[in-house]
């Protein structure tokens, strides 16, 4: 059974007080992710990627369609706070800029404490302390260089490693990663990519990797979904998508991507 199944998902945003306007942000989207699989959702900004992610994360209600995680419908079968909490342990998010909002005023330790609280552990206990250190080391961070610092004292790469350290604490079955490396300089990006690969290999974590970068999707994924104007217009293995794109949009996209080892024409 797949970890995640998305069936005929549709989200229509309504706006306007007097003249109501409807925007179909996601239209009839279906796909699935198996255990230990990395699936990329590729599309340009505005194509519906983040809306899809927010619905899977249960931040946003769909207009219609079903999301099944381990066979349970997340909008129908999760009713109590306890069930929602369980869900947050199974499905975890890694965002583009994790410290953009309220977290920017607190030492970075806080994001790890939050993870421990989700696990019902007292963040200040000696056990928690060693869990935190272990998690930091697995993502290549030196605990004494990180703990007690404020977000602005860390580089983009370090902050993103820290968010992935949370995944090492919680060990979710599924990670929804929305543009997790797009703010990180090229020369450090490879290190973050390795961390996702390591979670997949060592913990059999499944990852929905959301990106506008086809090169990245090609490199990291087992399967690629191409999203365009709210719809998934094509899906397949990275090799299929790159060497034999079928949809006009995908063809045009792939032709436009600059290549390193070949010069155009």
């Amino acid at each position, binding site marked *: 059974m797949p970890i995640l199944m998305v069936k005929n998902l549709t989200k229509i945003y309504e706006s306007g007080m007097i003249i109501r306007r409807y925007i179909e942000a996601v239209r009839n989207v279906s796909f699935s992710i198996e255990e230990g699989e990395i699936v990329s959702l590729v599309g340009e900004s505005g194509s519906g990627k983040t809306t899809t992610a927010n619905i899977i994360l249960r931040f946003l209600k769909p207009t219609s369609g079903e999301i099944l995680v381990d066979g349970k419908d997340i909008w129908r079968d999760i009713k109590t706070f306890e069930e929602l909490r369980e869900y947050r342990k199974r499905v975890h998010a890694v965002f583009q800029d994790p410290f953009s909002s309220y977290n920017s005023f607190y030492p970075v330790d806080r994001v790890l404490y939050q993870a421990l609280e989700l696990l019902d552990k007292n963040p200040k206990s000696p056990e928690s302390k060693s869990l935190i250190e272990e998690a930091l080391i697995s993502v290549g961070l030196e605990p004494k260089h990180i703990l007690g610092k404020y977000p602005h004292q860390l580089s983009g790469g370090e902050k993103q490693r820290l968010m992935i350290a949370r995944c090492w604490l919680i060990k979710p079955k599924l990670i929804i990663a929305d543009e997790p490396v797009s703010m990180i300089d*090229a020369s450090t990006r490879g290190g973050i990519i390795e961390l996702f690969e390591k979670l997949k290999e060592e913990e059999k974590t499944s990852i929905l990797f959301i990106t506008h970068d086809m*090169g990245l999707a090609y*490199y990291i994924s087992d399967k690629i979904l191409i999203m365009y104007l709210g719809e998934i217009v094509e899906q397949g293995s990275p090799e299929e998508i790159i060497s034999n794109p079928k949809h006009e949009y995908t063809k045009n*996209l792939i032709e*436009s991507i*600059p290549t*390193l*080892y070949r010069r155009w024409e």
Partner: protein
Amino acid sequence: MNNLILQVENARAYYIVENNYIRAIDDVSLDIREGEVVGIVGESGSGKTTLTNVMLMNIKKPLSFIDGKVSLFSNGRVIELNKIPREELQKNIWGKETSIIPQSAMNALMPTKRIKDSILDVMKTHFEEIHEKEIIDKAKTRFEEIGVSKDAIFRYPFELSGGMRQRAVIAVATLLNPRFLIADEPTSALDVSTQKMVLKTIQNLREKGIVKSIAFITHDIATVRQIAETLVVMYAGKIVEISPMEEIIREPLHPYTKGLLYSVVTPEPEVKKRGVYHIPGAPPNLMYPPPGCRFHPRCKYKLDICKKDEPKLKIINNRKVACFLY
């Protein structure tokens, strides 16, 4: 080799902030020759934009030109730009001899002005008197030449797509047929299909003879590799390598160039085969750059000398590299 158009020799340009120097350009030398597209790559903060201001000698506080020489070669004359007052550069050099598509210019167009009025404003900085009709006609022609409808000049920026706006900026920057054009991250804010179009537009500027030489600045090697014949690699305010494009892609010499190239992720089988590298650590704060080679704290090949002495660019065949391994 073709004639020189612009030559930067041992330039230093520092930002002065609270009595401290930020050594953004530190002993940089670079030749731009006629007919050439030179790509300049480096990560954010490596000094690329500061270098564009040095090439133009557009030095404004807090930036200060410490020493060095910037020479423009024009009709057999050599003009030392670093000795010319700003007003004179504005009247006689900028826009006519050298010009720039500034980083983020397409988003900096005045939202309340039609494109044509922005063009007239720019022209007023170059001429005491302007003939409006003549300039408008010229602009219309240039817009058509680079593939934008001439009516776009009567529009407001928000009425144009990103690609159109960027091409409008290109048209304005090249209106007076400058011989040397600098493009600072001209494609970075655009989505991929528009990037390709804008890249072609810039390539055509040289093919149509609108400009002679181009410096194309970006953090994206795969993009610049499509258009430039020479690649200049910057790290922490210095040039670490200069090389013909094909050779540097095939065999990068400087350890930083290697790290940078091998971290590029494009949808190509070669990338899957070689894997995606990363360079540990982060670039230095340019207020306190490390002694010796600025890359040595992150370099896995470092020698003792790298911690003490600054490597100079050394010529190896038709390439240059600043590294003690060579």
